[in-house]
């Protein structure tokens, strides 16, 4: 365990030292500012309230979870794998007395920490903006639901990250992985719209699953099914990703 911790620390340090994570967070925050400006504009321009303080964080989440967050998750994941493959950094990582499984897990954990940190930051700042600039419609129940929505969004994002990790282990070039990820993302989104009865098969539809947690009458079975589908995806992608990582020669 101590070995894994060291490896994880190493990965987090690397992530922290890179600018991408910072850019991601800054962009996410500017998203909040921009969103708030649009809301204020709509409110004074059209007389439409737009959102209240309880809904603003959800609005931010609905946008970020489909744009910035997957994009930067892809960048960070690719950086952590393809980037190191191409710069021959992986050799250095692997010369340490750490098994490949632990290196792989440490990398995945570092990516999930990035996602989680990004989501939490967004939560805090969008709640703040919501309270400061919007008509007060918040209640404790609403606040708890918002926190829940942000937390559950972590899971589909992690599955998505695992998918990108798998791609990064198949293809050598980071750029091709990046564009393939975007392509897959868009294709799945479109398929989800056109084949709405099969939508739950696509990872991208799960990104919106926080909506289920907000429902008035809690759709427990639906949530369980989606959870199991995501778990299935997660296990498959993790195993396949690790298999390829394990086989790779550096």
């Amino acid at each position: 365990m101590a070995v894994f911790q060291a490896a994880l620390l190493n990965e987090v340090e690397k992530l922290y030292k890179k600018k991408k994570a910072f850019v991601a967070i800054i962009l996410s925050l500017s998203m909040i500012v921009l969103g708030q400006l649009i809301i204020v504009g709509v409110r004074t321009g059209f007389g439409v309230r737009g959102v209240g303080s309880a809904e603003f964080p959800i609005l931010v989440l609905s946008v970020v979870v489909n744009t910035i967050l997957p994009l930067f998750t892809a960048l960070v994941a690719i950086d952590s794998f393809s980037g190191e493959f191409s710069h021959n950094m992986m050799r250095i990582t692997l010369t340490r007395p750490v098994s490949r499984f632990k290196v792989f897990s440490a990398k995945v954990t570092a990516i999930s920490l990035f996602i989680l940190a990004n989501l939490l930051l967004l939560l805090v700042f969008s709640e703040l903006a919501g309270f400061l600039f919007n008509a007060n419609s918040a209640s404790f129940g609403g606040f708890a639901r918002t926190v829940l929505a942000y937390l559950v969004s972590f899971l589909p994002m992690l599955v998505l990250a695992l998918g990108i990790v798998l791609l990064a282990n198949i293809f050598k070039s980071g750029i091709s992985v990046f564009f393939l990820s975007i392509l897959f993302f868009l294709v799945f989104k479109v398929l989800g719209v056109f084949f709405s009865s099969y939508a739950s098969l696509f990872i991208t539809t799960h990104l919106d699953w926080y909506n289920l947690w907000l429902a008035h009458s809690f759709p427990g079975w639906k949530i369980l099914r989606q959870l199991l589908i995501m778990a299935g995806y997660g296990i498959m992608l993790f195993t396949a990703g690790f298999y390829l990582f394990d086989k790779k020669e550096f």
Partner: protein
Amino acid sequence: MKLKKKTAMLMSFTLGTLLFATTALADIANKSGYEQLKDSLKLTAEKASGEFDSFTLDISFVVKDNGEIVMSQNQLEKYDRKNGASENTFSNEDISGRSYSGYNYFDKNTMIGFSNGDNTYHVTEFTDERKFNSFDNPFKQEEAEDVEKIADALVGSLKDYVMVNENPDGSRELSGSLSEVQIPPLVNAVSSFALKQEFNRPYEQRGLNLSKDIYVKEVKGTASVNKDGVLENVLGTAVLSGTDAQGKAHEISIEILGKMTDINSTVVTKPDLTGKNVVKEVAKSAEYGPEFSNPQKFVGKFKNDIVIEKDGKLVKAGERIVDITSIDSQSVSGRYHEEYAQGFEQMASKDKEFNFEGTFEQKSSRNARLTINTDSSKTYNGDMFFDEYAGKIYFNVNYLLSRRGYDSNYSPAFE
């Protein structure tokens, strides 16, 4: 060690696949409440247009502002497919406070309309028995499938909010409720804006002049489906909240209720018109306009005045005269000319007189298409409409219409 790792990987991959495959299958097989609602809607439309002999639809729509009714529409429709008859009674009150109500009756040979405003029954009798379709299945229309796809996409993840409650006798209650948190903000903003535009009547006394902080607060719906899968009852409510220019808070609720009752036991009766105010018309069939009865009565002169402004006053400069020389149900012919009073002769333009010939249109037998041969050997087109009730004709010839001050409305010239 090596083998163990491989087996572990194989096992975990298989586990993942199994987990994914089984739940995915279960998920696809599971019909969401939204799907069930859609299915019963389709089934109901299909049965109503093909299986039920008769049924009654009761639809009402009410808009309330802080609990006070500002707008309502009620409609009671009875359909008798077996006898090809239907009737509907309606009463509406619009947002400006005007109210109107009336009654319509249709069968294979007759169409009767009555509105409480003029207290007159308008009866149209069809000479050809028409094909009667008491109820069209909207899902059979060409674009229905595309509309359904679009609706599915729009509803998106909201479909999981429809809950199903099954009763022991096989009937089901579907219900759904969305509060402001669940409605996607974009949908909320767009629909609030649309509703604001719909209700705001700045130039009228009534009307809901919301100006600030408008949002959709809640959307609720319930539906009951009987054991045959037919929708019997649908109730939908939406609540819109906002403040008006004076800062007063308003809560506007929009309620829609639809009921289907008396399946196979609805009776449609033709109204008894003895002693009532009746206007009768005869038409070939529903697609055709009313028939032209006794067109010969239009033979003769029709005229209107040529009016100009002179010395700050309106004066009569002459007359336009349409002289119909012959007319029957197929064609019409006659002569147009202008007569100017003394002192106004210089106004006369060329082509101030010509002969015209026209044939009546098939589907609208009071309307004739005209061809005109003028003295300057040019050919013009035009049309002519005979108003049987007012005893007037409308004479539209494109080159006359392009003149300033031309009046196409002619009255009979009584000497």
